[in-house]
């Protein structure tokens, strides 16, 4: 019952957020700020994680290929497929759920407990539209770009790991990453990243918007937002994979 109530409240909040976004100039200003804070602020961590994860995937692939019947270029092929299909969309989304989700929930939650949201409402501002819509839009714009960047860096992380440690020569790895490339896999991954972007920002905003209490509750809400967003991402990952790949 509580779950249904929460879901209903979440749907109503999203309806309010998309209903009247407020003045264009405010929306533009907020959007640029959110792109900077949610996207540009996450480039560093995503670059580092993608490079290292790509490298680890490639080394693990190389280490597990023992049969001489399996060509070594499979390392590049498998690294590319793992990075594009799963790692860059899902794992990056889970990392962003932690970083961006907690940030959004605590920002909006603090505004709620310090009556800043009430002040917006009293002024006649649609607080949901003013606070939440720019965050969702910014995430929808920037997270697919971050996902593409992560794919690129993950694949090259594998390349550097293989070539620098002597596991594989560069022509063999490149042969693997160019083998049987299906652009649809890229589309599938980008669709997932769009859905995950919406989940991360909307769930965190919802949790922050309805927080009650003080700083302790804001902290707890921030954790709950990350947990809820992560579980939703895993669930939708399964649903989308079933719908889009089979």
């Amino acid at each position, binding site marked *: 019952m509580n779950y249904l109530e929460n879901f209903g409240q979440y749907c109503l909040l999203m309806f309010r957020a998309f209903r009247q976004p407020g003045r264009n100039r405010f929306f533009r200003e907020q959007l640029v700020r959110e792109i900077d804070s949610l996207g540009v602020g996450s480039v560093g961590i995503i670059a580092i994680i993608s490079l290292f994860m790509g490298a680890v995937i490639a080394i693990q692939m190389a280490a597990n290929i023992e049969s001489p019947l399996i060509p070594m270029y499979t390392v590049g092929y498998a690294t590319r497929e793992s990075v594009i299909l799963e790692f860059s969309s899902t794992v990056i989304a889970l990392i962003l759920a932690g970083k961006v989700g907690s940030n959004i929930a605590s920002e909006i939650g603090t505004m709620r407990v310090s009556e800043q949201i009430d002040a917006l409402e*009293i*002024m006649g501002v649609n607080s949901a539209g003013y606070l939440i819509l720019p965050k969702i839009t910014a995430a929808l714009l920037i997270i697919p770009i971050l996902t593409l960047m992560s794919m690129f860096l993950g694949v090259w992380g594998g390349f550097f790991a293989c070539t620098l440690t002597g596991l594989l020569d560069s022509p063999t790895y490149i042969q693997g990453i160019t083998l049987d490339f299906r652009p649809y896999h890229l589309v599938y991954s980008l669709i997932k990243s769009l859905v995950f972007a919406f989940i991360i920002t909307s769930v965190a905003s919802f949790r922050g918007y309805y927080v009650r209490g003080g700083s302790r509750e804001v902290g707890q809400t921030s954790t709950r937002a990350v947990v809820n967003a992560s579980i939703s991402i895993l669930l939708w990952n399964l649903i989308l994979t079933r719908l889009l790949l089979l």
Partner: protein
Amino acid sequence: MIEIKHLSKSFGENQVLHQIDAAFEEGKTNLIIGQSGSGKTVLMKCVVGLFEPTEGDVLYSGRSFTQASFNEKRNIRKEIGMVFQGGALFDSMTVEENVAFPLRMFTKESRSEVMDRADLCLKRVNLPKAHKLFPSEISGGMKKRVAIARAIALNPKYLFFDEPNSGLDPRTSILIDNLIQEITQEYQTVTVINTHDMNSVMEIGDKIFYIHKGHKHWQGDRVGIWESPNKELTDFVFATRLMRDIRSKNFKL
């Protein structure tokens, strides 16, 4: 004028307000007083629309607020200015940006016109040199004044103050009280103040509503308080020895 008609509010089984009737007049400071937990903050939040009343109506110059559509409510809210207990300033904006916010949101004025108006409002509340500071860098009294400047930026018809003197020293409290009274007379606003500060009651209480356990127990002015036979009211107002002494010496306002 703001009229409250038979307003009740319950949270689940707990009824906080019982059939409140009141009328707040223009150009006067209307005070809602009562003990902590008496329901005065809930009453104010029902009047400004932050809580939905369980029963009854609130009329802003004859316009029903509780039955208004989303857009009608939005239009009424543009005529409302409210100063929250903690100020509720936007902490990521400077003082100047806080005051300019409603102007930028609801007017089509140019940036320079908006900033001129914000500057005027800040000067009106005697804060001519705090424009570029953030709320975290100013004192409690200054925060209240910035909140007042933001509340009057759009020339509101209705002004609400929730505990405007809480956390302030007596001298700053008097300055804030005087400022509220001056603004009320200058802009001819319907000013509603939620307080339990007896200095404010005696200084600026043109019209006073005493709320006790969710009921309106008494209504009158600051002169009437001295002569009221209402036991709950006198117990509340003359709770301190100083107030009792003043009263026993038959002090007249």
